[in-house]
């Protein structure tokens, strides 16, 4: 079977982002960008399915600007066979990404699409579910284990209060949680090999999708700061502060 892994280029998770003075957004002009951490887990899961013999081909797909090619090359270095970039300069939102991915999925007809459970920039947690809805496929979000059977996928999901297991009829959509796997480090030889792997480019127009969203961001602000705290000398002082100053115990 064919597996698609969807990847997004985001501000690196270690970067402390700054809000722009004109409140139009956060300043990502000169910051380090990386593959969304959950998408790394998704690619790793897809590549492991190939290594286990459950998948024949892994295709990495990304939607975004030309720089998203770097993100796709990283996916290829992890072990994806080829990449597809849906290139646009429009700032994409989850519904539009889901529509673009839907068009790519219809072309590629994979049996399984794995995405990250959320992107760490917009924290939306929507794209996988939306893609499943558009395709009319079953979904399993927040996966911590995937087992492929005959025409089915058995997925363990992380839910509030514990775990649950669902069985999906393939083709299906799975979104990866943190504990699905530990993504491998990409090695230099694999980075070199990844440069030779095929990477196709599509456009929203070519796929027949309007990339503009009906959701408008009016402004982006710093969260309200906390008043500076104090360091206390010992436990007695701490208990006193909690009882008499904060009055929380």
């Amino acid at each position, binding site marked *: 079977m064919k597996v698609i892994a969807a990847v997004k280029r985001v501000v690196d998770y270690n970067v402390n982002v700054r809000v722009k003075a004109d409140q139009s957004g956060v300043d990502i002009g000169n910051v380090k960008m990386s593959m969304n951490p959950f998408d790394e887990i998704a690619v790793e899961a897809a590549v492991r399915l190939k290594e286990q013999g459950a998948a024949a081909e892994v295709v990495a797909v990304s939607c975004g600007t030309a720089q998203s090619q770097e993100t796709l090359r990283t996916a290829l270095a992890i072990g994806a066979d080829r990449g597809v970039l849906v290139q646009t300069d429009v700032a994409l939102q989850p519904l539009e990404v889901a529509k673009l991915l839907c068009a790519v999925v219809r072309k590629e007809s994979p049996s399984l699409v794995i995405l990250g459970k959320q992107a760490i920039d917009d924290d939306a947690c929507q794209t996988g*579910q939306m893609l499943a809805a558009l395709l009319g496929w079953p979904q399993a979000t927040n996966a911590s284990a995937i087992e492929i059977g005959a025409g089915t996928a058995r997925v363990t999901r992380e839910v509030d209060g514990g775990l649950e297991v669902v069985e999906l009829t393939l083709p299906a959509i799975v979104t990866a949680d943190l504990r699905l796997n530990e993504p491998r480090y990409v090695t230099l030889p694999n980075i070199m090999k990844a440069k030779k792997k095929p990477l196709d480019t599509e456009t929203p127009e070519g796929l027949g999708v309007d990339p503009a969203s009906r959701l408008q961001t009016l402004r982006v602000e710093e969260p309200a700061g906390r008043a500076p705290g104090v360091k206390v000398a*010992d*436990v007695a002082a701490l208990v006193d502060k909690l009882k008499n100053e904060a009055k929380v115990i």
Partner: protein
Amino acid sequence: MTTLVIAEHDNAQLKGATLNAVAAAAKIGGDVHVLVAGANARAVADQAAQAAGVAKVLLADAPQLADGLAENVAAQVLAVASSYSHILFPATASGKNVAPRVAAKLDVAQISDIIGVESADTFQRPIYAGNAIATVQSADAVKVITVRTTGFDAVAAQGGSASVEDVAAVADSGLSTFVGREVAKSDRPELAGARVVVSGGRGLGSAENFKILDPLADKLGAALGASRAAVDAGYAPNDWQVGQTGKIVAPQLYVAVGISGAIQHLAGMKDSKVIVAINKDPEAPIFGVADYGLVGDLFQVVPELTNAL
């Protein structure tokens, strides 16, 4: 303008998160209806009918709705969606699972994890792990929204007197089946709704050492939480994780023990009313958000604190 709130429940009990979502719905204005989709869930519908501000409860009761499968629940929401201007889900694991499926079928952008309502079409939501707050305006005819429960004070569970109306349940999609569930049993308060949370991090060193937090949590009537480092190391179960990718909490008192305070952890707890940090590293970033910091060895401080309470 009428808002539909999708109830979070386990077929026996209405979950508190629903009451926070009803509070958000009340801020939007207009009537508030609640949909209970489940199996043998009449008791849940009756509880929802008593919640303050709820005008009507819709009950869809069928075996295929028992386990909250996204395919079936989303279809159920869509079956009644046409009379509503807003559809709200609590931003819990199940709400986040179903809401985008509903939004995509309605061809509308979903607004995730709102923490504020500015008007019927304008909402605030945190982005970048809570390091920025975006105000977004939706031009869609129907607004599909998930509500961050810590952003809105729950409405009273009693005092309402809504009618319960049965609605036809949708057929089983046949796309997925529920296999099983492993629910962690705990006598402690639920993490997301607790008044006090005691959380441990990598500094605890082992699952055995993590138990040092039990007596402290008992004395404070607190829920236990953990940082990702502690969960990954196996010191604490996954569903205790507080942070961008775990639970978002905003208790009256949050006690962070042996937690350095990575951005991703702060995203889950920095709206707590009072934050206490206990850490041996005076430079740990957690002290940047703590109201009261105590630099010291947690293995001495925690028992001492427990005894002092």
